[in-house]
C-alpha cells in the first residue's frame, strides 16, 4: 500500500458514560473508496465528525498527509482538503441549487472579504470562476434541470446530490459522505454509485463513506471498515467482510437483518 493520505489512530470518543468510538485505528490510501459500515448507533457518524473537525476525540488522533487534523476547527480541516457531507440533509434552504454551490466555493476565493466588498478585479475574477466551477459540478452531477430551483423545494434524492455538490465545491482531496444513498430508490442509488466512482477516477478524490445500503457498499468499496458498539471489528475487501463471522454476527444481532448481498 502506498503511503496513507489519512490515518485514524486510536480514536476514542466518550460522551459521559457512553463510548461512541473506542480505539478505532485504520489507514486510508490516496484515491481509495473506503466504506465504514456498522449497525445503527455504532459510532460511524461520530467517527466522521472527528475526522472533519466537528468533534474532538477524547483520545487518539487523525493524521492527514502527515499533519494532525483532529482537534482543529472544521473550517481549518476543510481548508486542508478534508470535507464532510452530512447524514441529515444539510443544504442552504433559502438559496437556489446554483447559489448553494457557488457560496460553497468560499475556500477557493483569492480576494479578501474587503476585496469582495469593493468588487475588485480579483473579486470579480473569483466570482466568475465560482460560477463556472458551479456549472461544472451541476453538469457532473446531472443537476441541470434543477439548477435554479429553491433548495427547500427539492425531493430527497436531489437533496443528497446537492449535499454532495456543496462538498465538491470546496475542491477537497478527501470527501466524507455520510449516507449518500439514503432515501434513494435503486436506480438513483446506482447512478450515485457511478458518480462516486467518477469522483475518484476523474477528479482524483479519496472517498470515505458511511452507508447502510449493503449492495451499494459492496459494489463501490475498495475496502470496508466495520464498526460495532464503537469498536472496529473488521477491515478488508468487500469479499473478506462478507465472509467475516464477526461482521455477520454484528448484523444478525441488530435490527438491520442480514448483511444483504
Amino acid at each position, binding site marked *: 500500500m502506498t503511503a496513507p493520505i489519512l490515518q485514524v489512530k486510536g480514536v476514542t470518543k466518550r460522551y459521559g458514560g457512553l463510548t461512541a468510538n473506542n480505539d478505532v485505528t485504520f489507514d486510508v490510501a490516496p484515491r481509495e473508496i473506503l466504506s465504514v459500515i456498522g449497525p445503527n448507533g455504532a459510532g460511524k457518524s461520530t467517527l466522521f465528525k472527528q475526522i472533519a473537525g466537528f468533534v474532538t476525540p477524547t483520545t487518539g488522533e487523525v493524521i492527514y498527509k502527515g499533519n494532525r487534523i483532529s482537534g482543529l*476547527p*472544521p473550517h481549518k480541516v476543510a481548508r486542508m482538503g478534508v470535507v464532510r457531507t452530512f447524514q441529515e440533509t444539510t443544504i442552504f434552504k433559502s*438559496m437556489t441549487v446554483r447559489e448553494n454551490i457557488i457560496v460553497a466555493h468560499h475556500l477557493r476565493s483569492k480576494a479578501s472579504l474587503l476585496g469582495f466588498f469593493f468588487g475588485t478585479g480579483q473579486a470579480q475574477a473569483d466570482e466568475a470562476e465560482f460560477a463556472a466551477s458551479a456549472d461544472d459540478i451541476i453538469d457532473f452531477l446531472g443537476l441541470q434541470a434543477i439548477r435554479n430551483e429553491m433548495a427547500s423545494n427539492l425531493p430527497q434524492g436531489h437533496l443528497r446530490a446537492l449535499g454532495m455538490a*456543496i462538498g465538491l465545491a470546496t475542491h477537497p482531496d478527501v470527501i466524507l459522505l455520510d449516507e449518500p444513498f439514503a432515501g434513494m430508490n435503486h436506480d438513483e442509488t446506482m447512478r450515485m454509485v457511478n458518480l462516486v466512482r467518477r469522483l475518484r477516477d476523474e477528479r482524483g478524490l479519496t472517498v470515505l463513506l458511511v452507508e447502510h445500503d449493503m449492495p451499494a457498499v459492496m459494489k463501490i468499496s475498495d475496502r470496508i471498515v466495520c464498526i460495532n458498539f464503537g469498536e472496529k471489528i473488521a477491515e478488508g475487501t468487500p469479499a473478506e467482510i462478507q465472509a467475516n463471522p464477526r461482521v455477520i454476527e454484528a448484523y444478525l444481532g441488530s435490527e438491520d437483518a442480514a448483511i444483504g448481498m
Partner: protein
Amino acid sequence: MSNPRILGIAAFLLAVFVLVPVFINLTGRWDFYYTLTSVALLSVAAAGVWLTFYIGRINIGQGAYALTGGYVSAILITQYGVSFWVTLPVAGLFCALVSVVIGLPILRLRGVYFAMVTLVLTEVARLTALALPVTNGAKGITSIPLPGELSLFGLTIIPDFATLENPKLAFYLMAAVLMVLTYLVLWRIVNSRLGHLCRSLQQNEELSASIGVNTAMLRVLSYAISSFFGGLAGAIFVAISQSIYPSSFVVQDSVNFMLYCFVGGLGSVFGPMLGTLLLYFGWDLLSIAKEYQLLIYSGTMIALMLVLPNGVLSLLDRKGGRK
C-alpha cells in the same frame, strides 16, 4: 443595476436632500427637521440590528452601543477637547472593539438565549454609566459644544455648527448623509460575498463551517459592524441634544431597534429604514389616541407580525417586485 432601481434611488435621494428641505422651508414646520433627523439616526442603529439578524441572531442590545458611542464622543469632546468629527469614527470603532470582546463569548449562543443576553447588555451599559466616574454618574454630561468646523488642508468642508443660522438643517443633512452611507454599505455587504456567507451562516451554521467558513470570525465581524453603526448613531444623537445621561438609551430603545427591523422586513436591506419611519411616525400619530396610544400601537404591531411576518417590504416581493 436595472433602470427602475436607479430611478428609485434617484427619487429617494431627491426626496431626502431636496424635497424635504424645500417642503419644510415652505411650510415653516422646522420641528420636522428634528423628527426626520431622529428617524435617520434611529434607522442607522436599526441597520446594525438588521445585520445581526442577517447572521441569524436576534439582537436586542443595540441601545448599549448607542449609549457607549454617545459617551465616548461626549467624553472626548468635553474632557479632551477632541473635535466632534474625530470622535465620530472613534465612537464607532470603540463600540466595534467592545462588541468583539462581548461577542466572542455570547455569539456562540443562539435563538432566545442570545436575545436574552443582548437584552441585558443595555441595562449593563446604563448601570456602568451610572457607576463610572468618567461618565459623571446620574448627572450625565451636559453643555456639550456643537460640532466644530471640519477642515482639510485649510479648506473648510463643514462649517462650525455654532456659527450656522440653522443648525437643525445641518444636523438633518448630516444624519441623512450618514443614513445613505450606512445603507449603501449594508447593501454592498449583502450583495457581496460577505453577505452570501452571512446567509449561509443564518441558514445552516454547521454546513457553513464545513465549507470552510470561519463561522466564529464571521459572526463577530457582523456584530462588530452592527455595533459600529450603533455607536455612530449614538454619538450624533448626543451632538444634537448636547447632553447624555445613563438613561439616554434604555432597554425600550433596544427593543424598538429590533421592532423597526421586524416591521420593515428582514428580507430587504431597506426594511429597517422603512420600519423606523413607519413606527416613529405611527407612534406620533397615535398620540391623538391619548391613553389608548400604547394599546393601539401594540395591537397593530401584533397584527402586522401575524399578517406580514416577513415585514412590510415583503409586499413588494409578493407582487414579483425587487428584493
